[in-house]
């Protein structure tokens, strides 16, 4: 009893020591900027002679937002983009991870292939896709015409929804490797005796997937969905390079709008308000996902 108490106390003390470095780094770097961005959203900020000048603006930045049509459209498109992107990334990453975990896909070659798209610098990646999508001499149009699938060049980035979906495809291509790697690690964490037991019970491949693989991957799946949702809502590089929000603002998503107001129009307070709405959106999303995870955790602890 005595030792067990000691053991638990040393665990608790160690916990604090172990958590401290990471928390301190986060506090030092991010505490001020995050508080500043919250405060800025209630201010009218102007560029003056020696820096920024501030005036109290109340909730005007926020009320302006919700009466602004572009903001509402950007909000809707951000939600669309995130839902579709996350669904596509999770589906593709899971398929890739399953294939790479299968004996046929275990070769080191595929592991390296998996990492290649991810290794490409995002700026170069964006320029590469702009080059691929180019209406006149992009390889996409050239190949489709060469294969006889289309007759005329398609202006991939020239019409509203098409442009948004093309950005989405480029983003999915870039995002799949990491999530797939995570899932691969998750798959390797599932003890093989569970599969053996399932097979002994006469489970077929699909039943093994549903009753062993999916439950075993639950934590990984939830984390992947949370992280990927955050990243999808923050997409910026691709829009900046591929379309600058065009055509006619149809690819303006929230984060891009926030950049445009902050850095291009220098309306820092308004830009911060947009970012804070984005933050609230992500936070609520994360809460919902994490709730979904909780019952299993408690069950595990009780058991």
């Amino acid at each position, binding site marked *: 009893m005595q030792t067990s108490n000691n053991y638990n106390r040393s665990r608790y003390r160690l916990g604090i020591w172990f958590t401290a470095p990471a928390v301190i*780094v*986060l506090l030092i*770097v991010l505490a001020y900027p995050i508080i500043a961005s919250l405060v800025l959203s209630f201010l009218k900020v102007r560029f003056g002679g020696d820096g920024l000048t501030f005036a109290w603006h109340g909730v005007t930045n926020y009320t302006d937002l919700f009466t602004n049509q572009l903001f509402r459209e950007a909000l809707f498109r951000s939600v669309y983009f995130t839902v579709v992107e996350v669904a596509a990334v999770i589906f593709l990453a899971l398929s890739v991870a399953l294939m790479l975990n299968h004996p046929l896909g275990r070769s080191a070659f595929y592991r390296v292939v998996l990492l290649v798209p991810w290794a490409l610098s995002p700026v170069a990646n964006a320029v590469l896709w702009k080059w691929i999508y180019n209406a006149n001499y992009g390889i996409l149009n050239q190949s489709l015409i060469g294969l006889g699938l289309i007759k005329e060049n398609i202006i991939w980035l020239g019409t509203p929804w098409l442009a948004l979906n093309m950005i989405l495809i480029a983003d999915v291509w870039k995002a799949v490797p990491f999530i797939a790697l995570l899932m691969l690690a998750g798959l390797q964490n599932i003890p093989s005796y569970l599969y053996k037991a399932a097979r002994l019970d006469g489970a077929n491949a699909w039943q093994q997937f549903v009753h062993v693989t999916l439950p075993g991957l639950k934590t990984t799946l939830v984390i992947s969905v949370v992280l990927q949702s955050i990243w999808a809502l923050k997409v910026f590089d691709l829009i900046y390079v591929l379309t600058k929000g065009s055509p006619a603002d149809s690819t303006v998503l929230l984060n891009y709008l926030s950049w445009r107001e902050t850095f291009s129009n220098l309306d820092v307070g308004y830009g911060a308000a947009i970012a804070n709405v984005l933050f609230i959106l992500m936070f609520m999303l994360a809460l919902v996902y994490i709730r979904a995870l909780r019952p299993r955790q408690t069950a595990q602890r009780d058991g």
Partner: protein
Amino acid sequence: MPRYLTQFFIRFGLIAFTLLSLGPVVWSVVTSLLPLSALTSKPPDLNPLNITLENYSLVLDSSRGLFSGLVNSLIIATFTAAVGLVIGSMAAYALARLNMPSSNKILMMILATQMFPGIVIAIPLFLVMSRTRLVDTHFGLIVVYLSFILPIVIWILKGFFESVPMELERAAAVDGASPIQTFRYIVLPISLPPLFATGVFAFIEAWNEFFFAIILTRINVKTASIAIAEFSGQYQTLYGQMLASAVLASIPVVALAIIFRRFILEGFAEGAIKA
């Protein structure tokens, strides 16, 4: 489903996966090897006789700063990944297993720091960094990148540490191992795949990050991604040179993957649990 059909689908899937992953990359290599005038032909003139290494020799010219950018990125990414893994895995373990009070709240706050778009925190962050004279230093950029990757590292590793069977830890405790020994000799070794995944993540994020590198560096600590972006200007985008430098800059990451491939080759967890 008959076995041969499964095999067929998996082989087909693997081929599709390889083509889709490498296709755009191959096209960027092709673009970097051919003159622009050949690529703007219809159809593109892919005659191998036109192949030239001119783009590569141009981007390696020291005045373009690609080489020093690669060195800076290597320093920054290595430190970010190493320090991030060490303190991130410690925090993750504490939050997963060490009975921390209100660990869920701490975790949520850690994740919340990731939800602020970098764009709005850039200006206040620049203010802090410039007051503390950390603009244009390796240290400054490493600390900032650490703050971006730590939440991810902690969340991912926490999930994996939770899946380490409690019995293993109890057994270690019965054998007289302290919690710190349990962490180092039991938990870490069987968590190599997720450690690898998060380590690569941290390295690549720090290697490729662009927006904060632009704002927080000036002259001495320009990273590779800045050097790459310099080929995309207002009046001209030098596709060939840009993609040549991007190809060069992704080599270290691919090399990293090749060197450490054994960590993702097989399930370490399986072995540990069997033993």
